[in-house]
């Protein structure tokens, strides 16, 4: 199997272009927050919100206040951010497509490609949410900021030359197991960020004063909580499937479906944490902030599972290609 050097170089160039485009999008989202002066009126609306526990009232109020308290300039910056992000998604997808074409295989054979794929799924998930609920554009900088930093870190620390797959990965289960893992992780990424923002926002709302700073420009706590929950609900079955497919692949490749390999163990821990989050969110006494903390712990476990388990611990999932 040979590698097409032209396409591989194009993939690397697209990677840089993606980072550049996302950085521009972050700037636009910053400008959106900076120019989004809220009229005092909407502060009263939010402060009157002990009823925010009721989804019925919060549903109509929150995205509406997010949009109503927006100046025209701010809205335009938000739209620019969305358009530039969408352009970045195209080049980001191009990174993986050209890599796949250059090496004639699925472009998730090492940690660089895996992480690039996860971030692509995260950005696409955010973009879909932002297009469906315009009020959520305001979290753009908090999604795209970490994405830019993560992409830079991925490019600098995890980069692996385009190369054929290592022998252990040459199986059709790669398409099933790893694809599901990338999808689940990318969606959990957005879910975790929404929960972090929810924790910040709900603390301000509980104080009864969201102020005039950045926090006041976030979507309402109830809306953020709903985004976190919906994305987790979407990601959880995918993650479950990824673990099950991994077990089936493990059975056919290593002769056992579960061997407490570090990656298996931590995937299971992440699964338990996300199951706990979904339960906590509908359990009295855990609903709201405690549940959101569980979701944040879930994201931390996912990141630990990617970074620590791949790069530091020894196990059967050592395909990182990082030395």
């Amino acid at each position, binding site marked *: 199997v040979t590698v097409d050097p032209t396409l591989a170089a194009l993939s690397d160039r697209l990677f840089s272009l993606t980072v550049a485009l996302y950085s521009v999008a972050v700037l636009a989202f910053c400008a959106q927050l900076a120019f989004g002066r809220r009229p005092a009126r909407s502060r009263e609306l939010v402060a009157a919100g002990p009823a925010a526990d009721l989804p019925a009232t919060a549903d109509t109020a929150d995205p509406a206040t997010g949009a109503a308290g927006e100046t025209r300039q701010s809205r335009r910056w938000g739209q620019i951010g969305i358009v530039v992000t969408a352009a970045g998604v195209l080049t980001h997808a191009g990174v993986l497509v050209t890599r796949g074409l250059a090496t004639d295989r699925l472009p998730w054979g090492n940690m660089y490609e895996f992480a690039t794929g996860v971030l692509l799924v995260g950005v696409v998930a955010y973009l879909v949410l932002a297009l469906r609920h315009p009020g959520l554009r305001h979290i753009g900088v908090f999604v795209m900021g970490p994405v830019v930093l993560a992409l830079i870190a991925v490019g600098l620390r995890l980069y692996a030359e385009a190369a054929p797959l290592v022998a252990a990965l040459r199986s059709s289960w790669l398409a099933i197991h790893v694809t599901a893992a990338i999808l689940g992780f990318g969606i959990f990424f957005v879910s975790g960020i929404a929960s972090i923002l929810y924790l910040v926002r709900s603390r301000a709302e509980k104080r009864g004063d969201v102020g005039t700073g950045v926090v006041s420009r976030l979507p309402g706590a109830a809306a953020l909580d709903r985004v976190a929950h919906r994305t987790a609900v979407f990601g959880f079955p995918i993650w479950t499937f990824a673990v099950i497919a991994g*077990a089936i692949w493990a*059975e056919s490749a290593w002769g056992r*479906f579960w061997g407490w390999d570090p990656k298996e163990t931590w995937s299971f821990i992440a699964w338990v944490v996300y199951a706990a989050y979904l339960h906590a969110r509908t359990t009295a006494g855990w609903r709201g902030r405690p549940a959101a903390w569980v979701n944040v712990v879930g994201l931390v476990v996912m990141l630990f599972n990617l970074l620590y388990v791949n790069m530091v611990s020894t196990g059967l999932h050592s395909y990182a290609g990082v030395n």
Partner: protein
Amino acid sequence: MGETLTLEDGTEITFTGVKEFAALQFSHDPGQVWVLGAAIALLTGLLGLLLLRRERFFARALPAPGSGPDAGGTVLAVASLTRGGGDPAPRFAALTAELQAALEARAGPAAARPVPPSGGTAPEPKGTEA
């Protein structure tokens, strides 16, 4: 075979031969088919749990309290308890509107009037009472 290489520090390396080997692993787990079945059942159940809407509607018909023009009528209280499947409020509003339309069709527009909820508490914050 027999080739020799001298490294910079004087170490001599001779290729003396090759031994072929194979690592074989036999495993038998009679339970794993059951595990697969359980995993599929788990995933199916999970999808049903998360994607299907489980909705309970409660309706309670009570004689209208007090005197005046309302006396002798019936108050129909409707409530719902929803799990999974997103936001129940629009569906509930549609249901009550449909119910009211049906009542009006049977008894005439003057007879069926919405009455604001009278201090009833929903069994769950998620439930909406009207």
